[in-house]
């Protein structure tokens, strides 16, 4: 049964392992996945700890519905205090790891301390073993996974690993599973590296009892029809996330040359259709792959078509790789894109952060803030493909002054570089922004400014705001399960109604992250996809637990507040440019230079932005400083946190 999956406490310093059940009262309050991770992090860490010290706690989990018939329950969630911004660190990845962990008997791992020598965890049907990983240290992401399979003699093992970047404590190293599934954001790979933990390998053949199998099967079938009938998912299933990059680039919604432009020109070679063509030529007409149980199949398979890496197999590239290796550095070669994507996948680097920071360094170089002295002679200009790929390697291995400096993440790097370099750093809470430009879309700007893990598009982005949906459609979505009768606007350049949309999406995304479902299966890119009304049935058929849509909403709100409490404890201040709900000044001061007529020449209005934040805080029950009011904590049952129940 899904509900009897356990939680394991693993102390790498002492080697002590403790396994406990997860009480049902805890499930009813935090469900599982990211929500329960937030509870565990808040309870098991102390204020002000060093994110790369043994006192940081690494949480690895599946959701409440992982490996059940809820469709696309592939997501693994990873959490710790972030070494990148010092706020909450949180990353979510697809693939096949979480279901295998659940079949091996576990939903949550709480990993503390630091191993003396490199180790990995071997989790097999209820048992956990700490094993020597000295022979794995130094291996790339896929080398590590195949070596573990060989060592343990089982091809079905699924592992979550770090590459060289994680070992080298690059503060935005990711955790990875399979060829390209990555828990990318906020440096969770560095936390693993700091604990000398190279990998977590799982293999399980334990039954997960489905409460109502017949109904679960039928509902899953209905779900799949709903999901695959959405046009956006059909496009995702053909072109993958590059289609989003292509669409938003043509309209002027991506970042180019750090933050100088909002559109990349003359880039036919890296349009989604061109990438698709390479995949067709190098892999075949059927080149899309899926995560566990998912019918969207948005992951492309390819071989690098030319150059020194010719013939090498990899998967992707995603939107963020296009941003990192095309838009941001203003490079236009498909080979650079596919090679860059391959390098970050093998080194275990967050492509988003890597691309953003290199583009930032390129702008600094062109401005003369960085010189040949700092770059060791590398001509770090926009459009220099070779310099771009060279910097990726230097960051992963901390080579040279600049490689080592950028590996520290934007906040520390800007201190080291000095001068006014910080003014050009496009970040929130120390985490680089997605390669999208939000100056024409206030709703999306509010989302990146207030996302709990630092600038982010997967924590509260009302992406459907770009579709100009009729107001009644918006109202139908955004007024369940809690009534909302305030204004809503179909216009993406508007400010009214947007704070509510961001608040609603924040709770929606938290709910799917607690359940372990992919965001392509909810109201993220498609307005017709499942949300609060559908989940209670899925939960009931699969686990037997009963919830109302409103109860799920309350749980999501509670878990989001826990993340807020963590950030406040670590020093979140509303308008602090380093660790606040605040955007880079360029959002307010530099108008967009390119794009469609309703996009060009736009900035975010400072006063209106402030009002949006006020309104957003109001919905969340925060005071004007962003601190929860006592009655809010009481309403959400968080007045006694940390409560140390688990």
């Amino acid at each position, binding site marked *: 049964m899904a509900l009897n999956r356990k939680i394991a406490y693993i102390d790498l310093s002492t080697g002590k392992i403790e396994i406990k059940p997860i009480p049902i009262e805890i499930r009813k309050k935090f469900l599982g996945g990211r929500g329960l991770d937030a509870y565990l992090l808040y309870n098991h860490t102390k204020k002000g700890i060093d994110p790369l010290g043994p006192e940081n706690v690494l949480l690895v989990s599946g959701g409440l519905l992982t*490996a*059940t*018939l809820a469709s696309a329950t592939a997501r693994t969630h990873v959490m710790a205090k972030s070494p990148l911004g010092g706020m909450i660190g949180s990353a979510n990845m697809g693939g*096949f790891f979480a*279901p295998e962990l659940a*079949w091996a008997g576990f939903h949550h791992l709480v990993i503390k301390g630091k191993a003396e020598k490199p180790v990995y965890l071997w989790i097999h049907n209820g048992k956990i073993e700490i094993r020597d990983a000295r022979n794995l240290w130094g291996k790339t992401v*896929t080398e590590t996974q*195949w070596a573990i399979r060989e060592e343990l003699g089982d091809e079905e093992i699924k592992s979550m690993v770090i590459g060289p970047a994680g070992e080298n404590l690059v503060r935005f190293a990711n955790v990875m599973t*399979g*060829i390209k599934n990555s828990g990318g954001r906020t440096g969770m790979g560095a936390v693993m590296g700091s604990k000398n933990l190279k990998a977590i390998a799982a293999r399980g*053949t*334990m*039954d*997960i*009892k*489905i409460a109502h*199998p017949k109904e*679960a*099967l039928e509902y*899953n*079938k209905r779900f*799949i029809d709903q999901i*695959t009938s959405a046009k956006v998912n059909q496009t995702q299933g053909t072109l993958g996330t590059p289609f989003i990059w292509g669409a938003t680039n043509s309209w002027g919604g991506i970042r180019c040359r750090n933050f100088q432009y909002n559109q990349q020109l003359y880039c036919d070679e890296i349009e989604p259709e061109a990438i698709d063509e390479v995949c067709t030529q190098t*892999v*075949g*007409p*059927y*080149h*899309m*792959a*899926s*995560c*566990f*149980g*998912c*019918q969207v*199949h948005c992951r492309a*398979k390819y071989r690098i078509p030319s150059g020194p890496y010719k013939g090498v*197999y990899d*998967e992707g590239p995603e939107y963020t790789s296009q941003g990192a290796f095309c838009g941001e550095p203003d490079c236009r070669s498909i080979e650079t894109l596919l090679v860059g994507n391959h390098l970050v996948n093998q080194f275990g680097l967050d492509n988003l952060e890597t691309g953003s920071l290199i583009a930032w360094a390129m702008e600094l170089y062109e401005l003369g803030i960085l010189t040949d002295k700092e770059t060791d002679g590398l001509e770090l200009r926009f459009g220099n493909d070779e310099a771009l790929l060279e910097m990726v390697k230097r960051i992963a291995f901390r080579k040279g002054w600049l490689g080592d400096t950028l590996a520290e993440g934007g906040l520390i790097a800007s201190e080291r570089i000095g001068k006014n370099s910080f003014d050009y750093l496009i970040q929130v809470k120390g985490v680089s922004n997605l390669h999208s430009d939000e100056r024409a879309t206030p709703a999306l700007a509010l989302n990146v400014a207030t996302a709990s893990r630092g600038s982010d598009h997967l924590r509260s982005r009302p992406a459907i705001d770009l579709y100009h949906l009729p107001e009644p459609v918006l109202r139908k979505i955004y007024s369940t399960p809690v009534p909302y009768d305030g204004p809503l606007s179909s216009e993406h350049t508007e400010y009214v109604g947007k704070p509510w949309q961001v608040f609603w999406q924040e709770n929606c995304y938290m709910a799917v992250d607690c359940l372990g479902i992919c965001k392509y299966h909810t109201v993220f890119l498609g307005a017709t996809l499942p949300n609060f009304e559908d989940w209670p049935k899925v939960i009931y058929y699969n686990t037997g637990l009963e919830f109302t849509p409103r109860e799920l909403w309350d749980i999501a709100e509670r878990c989001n507040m826990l993340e807020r409490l963590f950030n406040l404890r670590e020093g979140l201040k509303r308008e602090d440019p380093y660790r606040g709900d605040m955007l880079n000044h360029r959002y307010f001061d530099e108008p967009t230079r390119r794009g469609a007529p309703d996009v060009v020449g736009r900035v975010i209005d400072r006063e209106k932005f402030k009002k949006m934040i006020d309104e957003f805080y109001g919905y969340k029950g925060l005071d004007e400083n962003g601190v929860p009011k006592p009655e809010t904590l009481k309403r959400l049952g968080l007045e006694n946190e940390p409560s140390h129940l688990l």
Partner: protein
Amino acid sequence: MEVTGKVLAIYPEKCTGCRLCELVCSVFHDGVSNAMRSRIKIVKWESEGIYIPMVCQQCQDAPCMIVCPVKAISRDEALNRVMVNHDICIGCRSCVAVCPFGAMGFNVIDRKNFKCDLCDGDPQCVRFCEVKAVDYVDAERVSLEKKRAAAGKITAAQRQAIALELEIR
């Protein structure tokens, strides 16, 4: 039960590797989620992105049927399938050993062998596979489609030859 000439047709190149078939198979037959219990299995070469669905071929002269010492395995001609009678089966696993496709499973929890029974004519793996990497079709259709695909290559070559000849003229 209606007489049918239908078989499971596998198109490995279409498989996206999601393993939903494994999940629905185990839930349909055993009421639990457990890939180990699935009658169908996606075998992967992940480093090359190759995914191959493997399942019982319902052989005419099935090795499992021949090897069974107690004649617990027989053909059900109505549905074109090979079935195990668990009242007779002694759990010796000879069938597991001889199956050339590894399609006969042995469940270590129940201590019984298990294999694809085509879900009595409505294979769930087919029902849930959107890309139709697994399909349930009339037996003659399988080879017809393969013929057409292979013939397509010959026609393409012929067309090229004709075009080339026209060019030369």
